[in-house]
């Protein structure tokens, strides 16, 4: 058991931090980037590709690097630290992860190679009006006619759905179950719009739109989707702890520098104790997220599901606590778009609602309390 990074992981973290600090170390650069479509920097994305980050999770045969969850987590934490708007979680972890898990060798080579090289952006078109973090699809249905497939229905919100070159779409299969399909972005009707965290989302309408089944046609892939969503939750958790760490640091720095009543705010114990409580939330969430990241390595979907729910719950509570307090302890300045701390709160809110809020995870966990006597975090794998 070891919670520290090895030398290579340290080197990866330093390299990613170097790149992202150059891009967004100055918060104003992030603001300018998110003001114009597509809401992230194509240049930074290309640099991430050149550094091998976009291919990190995929096997070398598929044009990737073949790294493990800890390496992906390191990238996510660094993205969180500067609230980078690049759609790493959506394109690489979720959409790319599904192609890697379910695609044919040919699809993997074609899609993941281009994704890793930064040449083709993927989006996972899964959420539907009325759906709440389910692993199944019902608002888009798939039809087969002589070996050709088409999709009809609506997906929304699809993060980076308007910019994506290729959509990975979940759809209800003719015989029931949820399949996955590859759809050319141009073939769908897409309406893009900005989201409150500086990102972009879209409504994607499919109307007898040609689609290629991902992997073997007609297979129910709901459990693969569930596992990728769980991985996404854990990686979103990593992004969130990066963001929380910086939000806390900004807050403590502010308490030391801001003067009211002739003294720094840090002389008011009422405020310093609250910063201390933020730290407690952050450390506990970090522990659970790091543990969950290591559970991913076990490869046991049930263990990953459980770990993702536990990490998700802790991150939900901690994210709200740290985000809300960060604004409150800054006073009015924390409410402004120009000052970074509010964006950290926005991003924390987004990460949580993208993949399941605290109540969602708590519901799942409470349904399973009789499955075990006690929890042994070291018993997995």
């Amino acid at each position, binding site marked *: 058991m070891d919670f520290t990074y090895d030398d290579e992981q340290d080197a990866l973290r330093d390299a990613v931090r170097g790149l992202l600090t150059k891009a967004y170390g100055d918060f104003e650069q992030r603001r300018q980037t998110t003001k114009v479509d597509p809401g992230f920097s194509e240049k930074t994305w290309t640099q991430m590709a050149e550094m091998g980050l976009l291919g990190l999770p995929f096997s070398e045969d598929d044009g990737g690097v073949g790294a493990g969850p800890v390496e992906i987590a390191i990238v996510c934490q660094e993205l969180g630290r500067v609230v980078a708007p690049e759609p790493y979680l959506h394109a690489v972890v979720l959409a790319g992860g599904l192609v890697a898990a379910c695609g044919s060798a040919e699809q993997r080579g074609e899609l993941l190679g281009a994704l890793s090289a930064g040449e083709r952006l993927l989006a996972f078109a899964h959420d539907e009006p009325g*759906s*709440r973090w389910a692993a199944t699809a019902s608002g888009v249905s798939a039809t087969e006619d002589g070996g050709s497939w088409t999709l009809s229905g609506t997906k*929304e919100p699809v993060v980076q759905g308007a910019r994506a070159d290729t959509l990975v779409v979940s759809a209800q299969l003719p015989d029931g179950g949820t399949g996955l399909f590859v759809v050319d972005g141009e073939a769908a009707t897409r309406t893009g719009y900005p989201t409150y965290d500086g990102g972009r*989302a879209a*409504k994607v309408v499919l109307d007898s739109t040609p689609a290629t089944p991902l992997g073997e046609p007609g297979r129910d892939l709901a459990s693969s989707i569930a596992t990728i969503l769980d991985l996404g939750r854990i990686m979103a958790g990593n992004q969130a702890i990066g963001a929380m760490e910086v939000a806390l640091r900004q807050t403590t720095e502010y308490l030391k520098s801001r003067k009211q009543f002739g003294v720094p705010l840090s002389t008011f114990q009422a405020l310093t104790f609250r910063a201390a409580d933020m730290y407690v939330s952050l450390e506990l969430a970090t522990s659970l997220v790091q543990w969950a990241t290591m559970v991913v390595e076990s490869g046991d979907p049930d263990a990953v599901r459980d770990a993702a729910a536990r990490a998700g719950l802790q991150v939900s509570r901690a994210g*709200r606590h740290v985000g809300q307090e960060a604004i409150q302890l800054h006073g009015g300045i924390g409410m402004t*778009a120009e000052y970074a701390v509010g964006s950290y709160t926005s991003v924390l809110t987004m990460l949580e609602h993208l993949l399941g809020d605290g109540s969602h995870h708590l519901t799942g966990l409470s349904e399973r309390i009789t499955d075990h006597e006690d929890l042994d975090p070291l018993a997995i794998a």
Partner: protein
Amino acid sequence: MQLALSAEDQKFREQMRTFFTTEVSEDIRRAVIEGRELTKEQIVESQQTLNKAGLAVPHWPTEWGGQDWSDLQRHIWNEEMQRAGVPTPLAFNASMIGPVLAQFGSQEIKERFLPKTANLDIWWSQGFSEPDAGSDLASLRTTAVKDGDDWVVNGQKTWTTLGQYGDWIFTLVRTDPDVKKQAGISMLLIDMTSPGLTVRPIELIDGGHEVNEVWFEDVRVPAENLVGELNSGWTIAKFLLGNERVGVAPVGTTKRILARAKSLAGERASEPLLAARIAELENDLLALELTALRVVAHSADGEPHPASSVLKLRGTELQQAVSELMVDLAGPASIASGAGGDSALDEWTHHTTPTYLNLRKASIYGGSNEIQRQIISRTILGL
């Protein structure tokens, strides 16, 4: 002790309910209920409808448009208004500067400003806070120096809510730099079209433009625009902030949104966790509403109830908690904050997160919740 409303108050309540739900434009009330941002015109129209019926400023002296109501009736008026989705009269006019002018203004100032203030013919902005004077308001630095018959004002105000619509701004300015900081402050009324006055927008985290910076460069203000005595601004400000805090707990609005949340939750409302969360919020709100009623009933004998400090503190916390619930109800759809009219997601879901983020302000302005706790611990608990 007695719980039921008297027959008279009951009738009053019915009257209010009928007026608010039938006389104020349906479009405006819909917009409030859906959580859409109101235009300036809508806010003005609504207040003028109320004012015509004598319902915009019932807490003012009767000579200036007030009603001789009991505190309980005022409470009922306020709650019914919020419940019906009627925008409450612009606080800067109705709750802040109006009562101040009625109390401290010269007869000339009263006649000049009060009727227009009640009718929102003048839109007031509040120019108190400065970059270095937030919770510590008395450290403000904007100066006013006498030059002939004018004051010459220099400095910067910030966080001026809806200053982009403002016709006039009531400010606190330093008129004597040589005395204890609270003692050298005065209140000045300034025409926002005066040369040398600039309003600059500040973008907030929900993407909206609600607050502004206001800069004063040698702005000339006629001497008669001083409110009350020279250097008595701090006393006036305390009076004003006291009014700002009363009625700041929007119990009626929060109740309306919670009821809406319940109906939007539909079948999900029976999920144990969600049901428990709603039940707890309902209970907290009930406790708050009853506290408000206790305060109202008590101040009928003239003395303010000490528990009134609970209202701002808890009122804003619950307002924020209900906005958080709405985001969670919207689920993944809450992400689609910028979706337009042709979105496949219900319109209410688009507003949930910007509203949640925007409402973080409620525990910061008007005396932050930390300052409220300080009032409770110092003034009430004697700590």
